[in-house]
């Protein structure tokens, strides 16, 4: 039998899709894999200002884990990360849900919530410094109103400074989370709402127990965006506290940056960033495979 055409080469199926994915593949391979490999590679050297090939084994890592500042950074990142993740999601979702009530001024309110996102932290950090400054910020105002024992000085108190950073971070980032959530909310089937209304489920419960779980893809997107932002947090801390008081609000990305460019110790910076990436990869890779690996 003229067994007709052979199965065409797999390579040419979905050719357009593959061509269109070339930038992605290149980026993934050259930049992310290549760049990461390069970074990891040089983390075993004692590169200073310029990358150079003098291998020192695990010295950089030993030093890293013996550095109090790195340990503090990790701890801070953990606290800041968990809280920021939770609060961003909660506040972002609540705001989105509130804006979803067919309210007036939706555009204006959305823009207000979003505007901090547009402002460079180089300066807004200063404003937050002021606001949280005990001598002329919120504390001073409240005290001048008569409540003289009121204390609110997160930026100058080592044990709570990270919360001061968090306040500003939420101010800046929740608007965008809200936008993402809003986009997700607008995609929910109307009938679900109707069913919930007939069932007599209050709106907030509908949001929480029905709509929220249905927004899983958006939530995941949001989660990754927030998490990536958390791991990379840098500007904010520099602008607000420069890592202070002392080293109380240091974060890993700042450690990386400081050691690469201030201390001119690329090797140390690379070692620190390799550790960061390693921990991210440990969490992300299995999760991505679970989440996206299976066919839909």
């Amino acid at each position, binding site marked *: 039998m003229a067994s007709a055409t052979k199965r065409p080469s797999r390579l040419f199926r979905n050719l357009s899709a593959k061509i269109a994915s070339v930038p992605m593949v290149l980026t993934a391979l050259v930049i992310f894999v290549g760049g990461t490999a390069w970074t990891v590679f040089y983390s075993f050297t004692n590169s200073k200002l310029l990358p150079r090939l003098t291998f020192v084994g695990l010295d950089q890592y030993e030093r890293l884990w013996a550095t109090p500042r790195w340990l503090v950074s990790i701890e801070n990142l953990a606290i800041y990360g968990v809280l920021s993740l939770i609060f961003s999601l909660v506040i972002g979702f609540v705001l989105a849900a509130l804006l979803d009530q067919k309210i007036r001024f939706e555009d204006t309110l959305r823009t207000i919530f979003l505007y901090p996102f547009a402002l460079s932290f180089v300066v807004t950090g200063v404003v937050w410094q002021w606001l949280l400054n005990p001598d002329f910020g919120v504390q001073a105002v409240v005290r001048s109103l008569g409540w003289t024992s009121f204390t609110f000085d997160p930026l100058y108190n080592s044990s709570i400074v990270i919360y001061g950073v968090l306040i500003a971070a939420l101010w800046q980032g929740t608007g965008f989370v809200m936008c993402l959530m809003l986009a997700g909310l607008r995609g929910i089937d109307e*009938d679900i709402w*109707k*069913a919930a*209304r*007939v*069932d*007599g*489920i209050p709106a907030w419960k509908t949001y929480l127990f*029905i709509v929220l*779980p249905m927004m899983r893809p958006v939530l995941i997107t949001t989660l990754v965006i927030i998490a990536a932002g958390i791991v990379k947090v840098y500007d904010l801390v520099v602008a607000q506290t420069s890592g202070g008081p002392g080293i109380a609000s240091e974060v890993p990305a700042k450690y990386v940056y400081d050691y690469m460019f201030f201390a001119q110790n690329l090797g140390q910076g690379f070692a620190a960033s390799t550790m960061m990436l390693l921990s991210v990869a440990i969490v992300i890779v299995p999760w991505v495979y679970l989440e996206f690996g299976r066919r839909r």
Partner: protein
Amino acid sequence: MDATANTSVSIQELSLNFGTVSVLQSLNLDIAEGEFIVLLGPSGCGKSTLLNCIAGLLDISDGRIFIKGKNVTWEEPKDRGIGMVFQSYALYPQMSVEKNLSFGLKVAGTPKEEIGKRIARAAEILQIEPLLQRKPAALSGGQRQRVAIGRALVRDVDVFLFDEPLSNLDAKLRSELRVEIKRLHQRLANTMIYVTHDQIEAMTLADRIAVMRGGVIQQLDAPQAIYNRPVNRFVAGFIGSPGMNFVDGRLEDGDGGWRFTSGDLTVPLSTYAFDRQPVAGPAVLGIRPEHIGLNSGSGWPFSAKANVDVVEPMGSDTLVWGRLGAQSLSVRVPSERAPRTGEQVEIGFDPLRASLFGEDGNRL
């Protein structure tokens, strides 16, 4: 004093507009306690819209709605004592079947054991006990539908609203669930309002059928009445599959009483029961394919010879298209007695089974 006291659902002068599009225009509908009402009508006539209005899911433009004698026009859906099953099921996708059923009750603060009891009962009625722990995604269409019904069931409501609950199922499952719904109604004796496209469903389930068209109820009556005595040509044509045969002609008052003529055809109407005093003039005669006899030889008040045009087998029956002068008529016969194309046959019917419509389309 209150006309609505002994009705379960009473809709008065209901109007609804979407922007400038008016979908329902001062619609009135009274439904008795425990009645099973089916809404039937062409696509886009406003059936879902009406149901949504009763449920309180759409803000009406005008009119009033009473449920159990209480004016619920401005009530929230949950306070109306209704349960609703949606065309698209609208199950909560992330919750197990049990959660889907219990969620509304939990929110309402029903005690736990009571919830358990009600779920058990609903699950038993709907035969979904083994499915309680599954998520909707792991259910077949029919099972989902039953869960959706169950969700309304557990809420112990006075009125059930169904929006084409069976339309996405296969015929076998559909007939099974139809029987279940019927049984449910008999057991619970709730009021039910049921939207469907399916005539078999409408005919078998309904106490009364409301045939709608363009947002207006054309006829509200028992299934057999609608089937046998449609009030207008629209209803006549809409109900019945294959559809009624219509013959355009004139109504004349002859020597032997009233008769209907069309071309050479003359149908004596002595056995026809007029709704109102007939007036000579243009009219349309309607007769259902199953009310026409074929070669039966028995003495029909009207009979004539016809040529078989097309023969359409439909399983148990066969549809025979016969040409009678200029008119084409369809006749339904048991398949084993079906003639062949081109054969000449004798057809006849009793005008008692026919319907006559005046120039305005209304029944004479």
